[in-house]
């Protein structure tokens, strides 16, 4: 395959994925992100960096994560599918990682970059708290002070993760501005960064933000897709027919999808959060319900009004509750390589319970969105077809939200 024919060579030298991506930041930050890009290129070419990353991924994170054939889930769906239908469902078990989600893959990579650059202080934003916990974890492991910005509303919704971060030695700063959720936490982290560029490394949690973040987060998360590809070849002797992943900013999805982009027979489906429903306005589906714009350093699809003011996303899952999406997804949507659909709070809750009961796995609410779409698609697909879904996080953090949604007092 020639370079011109690959979908895996994005972004361009300026950090653009087609018309998306880029570096829309204040001048103060520009020299720093240019330096980060240079350092990332040097690290990628350095065998010692790769060796240390691999060692940590294996011994600290617990990789490779299993690719698991969800036989009871598959059989359950086949019972309600037309004869000969009901695809085989495999789950990429990234919920078994240290800290319980895919977020740690990226944090390990970024903190190694921070150390290489001589930075002595770590900051991060977090929504549900999974990225905050993963960042606090690697900061503790490398002995660096860590400040995590979290919307005040999310601090209330995700108190167990706030306590986890504190146990890990991080300072959690509740952000009271704006809508008091993830986007405001990101604004506040950017404000901190611009005032502390000399010593601070910002570990961005999703495949978004100014170039080179979307690229490097994708690269660190691509371990998911690379492993899945090798594992399915070993187990089935062929590539899957469909990949499915949930999308907030989209880091777990791009991590699964990217290694398969040049395999034309592998279809891909990204699932955004439809919240109460796309027609209600209370959703977080940037691609299906938004338009291109500029926020947090990149041009991408955003939930916004006619004046370009950013509107609030809604999802039962705090991890999907972001009004934007990583720029590579916007590009993949634009060129039609990946299909993007959405799943409501209610549908995600149903899928959450389905996986609990059929497989004995409590998924996070984020991948529960993907699982709902998996159930829908599997019924339409032939029984000899294969789906891989990214089980990107475990649901321990969500049991209070789920109990409340189901009307159960615990």
């Amino acid at each position, binding site marked *: 395959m020639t370079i011109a024919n690959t979908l895996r060579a994005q972004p361009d030298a300026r950090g653009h994925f087609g018309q998306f991506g880029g570096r*829309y930041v204040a001048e103060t930050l*520009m020299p720093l992100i240019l330096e980060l890009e240079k350092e990332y290129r040097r690290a990628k070419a350095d065998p010692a960096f790769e060796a240390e990353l691999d060692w940590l991924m294996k011994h600290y994170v617990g990789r490779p994560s299993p690719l698991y054939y969800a036989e009871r889930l598959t059989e359950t769906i086949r019972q309600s599918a037309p004869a000969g239908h009901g695809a085989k469902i495999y789950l990429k078990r990234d919920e078994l990682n240290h800290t319980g989600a895919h977020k740690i893959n990226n944090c390990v990579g970024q903190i190694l970059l921070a150390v290489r650059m001589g930075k002595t202080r770590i900051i991060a934003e977090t929504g549900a708290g999974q990225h905050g916990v993963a960042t606090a974890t690697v900061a503790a492991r490398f002995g660096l002070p860590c400040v995590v910005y979290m919307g005040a509303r999310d601090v209330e919704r995700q108190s167990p993760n706030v306590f986890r971060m504190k146990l890990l030695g991080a300072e959690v700063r509740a952000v009271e501005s704006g809508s008091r959720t993830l986007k405001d936490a990101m604004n506040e982290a950017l404000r901190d960064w*611009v005032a502390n560029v000399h010593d601070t490394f910002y570990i961005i949690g999703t495949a978004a933000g100014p170039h080179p973040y979307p690229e490097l987060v994708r690269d660190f998360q691509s371990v998911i897709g690379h492993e899945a590809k090798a594992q399915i070849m070993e187990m089935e002797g062929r590539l899957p027919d469909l990949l499915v992943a949930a999308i907030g900013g989209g880091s777990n999805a791009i991590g699964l999808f990217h290694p398969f982009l040049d395999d034309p027979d592998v279809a891909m489906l990204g699932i955004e959060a439809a919240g109460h429903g796309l027609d209600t306005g209370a959703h977080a589906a940037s691609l299906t319900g938004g338009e291109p714009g500029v926020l947090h350093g990149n041009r991408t699809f955003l939930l916004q009004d006619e004046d370009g003011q950013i509107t609030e996303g809604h999802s039962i899952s705090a991890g999907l509750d972001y009004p934007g999406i990583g720029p590579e997804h916007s590009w993949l949507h634009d060129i039609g390589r990946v299909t993007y659909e959405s799943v409501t709070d209610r549908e995600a809750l149903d899928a959450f319970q389905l996986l609990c009961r059929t497989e004995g796995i409590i998924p996070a609410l984020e991948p529960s969105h993907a699982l709902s779409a998996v159930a829908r698609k599997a019924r339409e697909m032939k029984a000899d077809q294969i789906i891989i879904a990214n089980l990107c996080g475990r649901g321990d953090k969500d049991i209070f939200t789920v109990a409340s949604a189901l009307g159960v007092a615990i």
Partner: protein
Amino acid sequence: MSRLADTFAACAKEGRAALVTFVTGGDPSPAATPAILDALVAGGADVIELGMPFTDPMADGPAIQQADIRSLQAGTTTRHLLDIAKGFRARHPTVPLVLMGYANPMVRRGAQWFAETCAEVGVDGVICVDIPPEEDDMLGAALRAAKVDLVRLATPTTDAARLPAVLDGCSGFLYYVSVAGITGMQQAAQTSIEQAVAKLKAGTDLPVAVGFGVRTPDQAAAIARVADGVVVGSAIVEAIAEAHEAGQDPAVAVRSIVSGLSAAVQTARTREQAA
């Protein structure tokens, strides 16, 4: 020449720095802004920066964040801001007016639409916080085609290697952000400002205005001795907020604070000579 160039040239001829003042458009309400802009001029401001409110003002400190929220909660739209600009131009034919804000509200209806509308309503220049020179094609070309000045920001992290890129395509004036940080917080040390301005002026003939953290007449005077312009924003925005909360006329408070700043800037260099 543009109104910005004319104004800086006229101030230089008078042997003084220009006073550049910032308020958020639509704060506390779209209806209140015209009188506030008039008060800036009456108080002695030479250049007016009209902030375009944004839901996510990442480069701003608490004062301007809250001003943006007040403005948006009062229902301010892009149309309101352009109407405010048009009214200002009719009342003040020679005072330069610059729109300052973030990329998304500016390019929402297309860069060409924005640039042409700015020219049409009499806006002289645009400062966009989150479009660095690397992304100039998003807005810069459209502004130049419409003959609207694009004012760029230089910062303490803008080194000699980067400065030419910042200056390329910049017109009207160069805005030196004196601290690596957000608006309205601490002020940089005077010596570092002096050194930075000297370096910038060695690289360009454009006027250099210095802002971020300038709050008091004394601070403004110190900068006015070394720079072509002094930018004050958060201190004025705070005065608007205080007057509004106290049920007083924000325009009166604005005129009072700007008069003090203006007097300090006007006499800064002569006082220095006397001393």
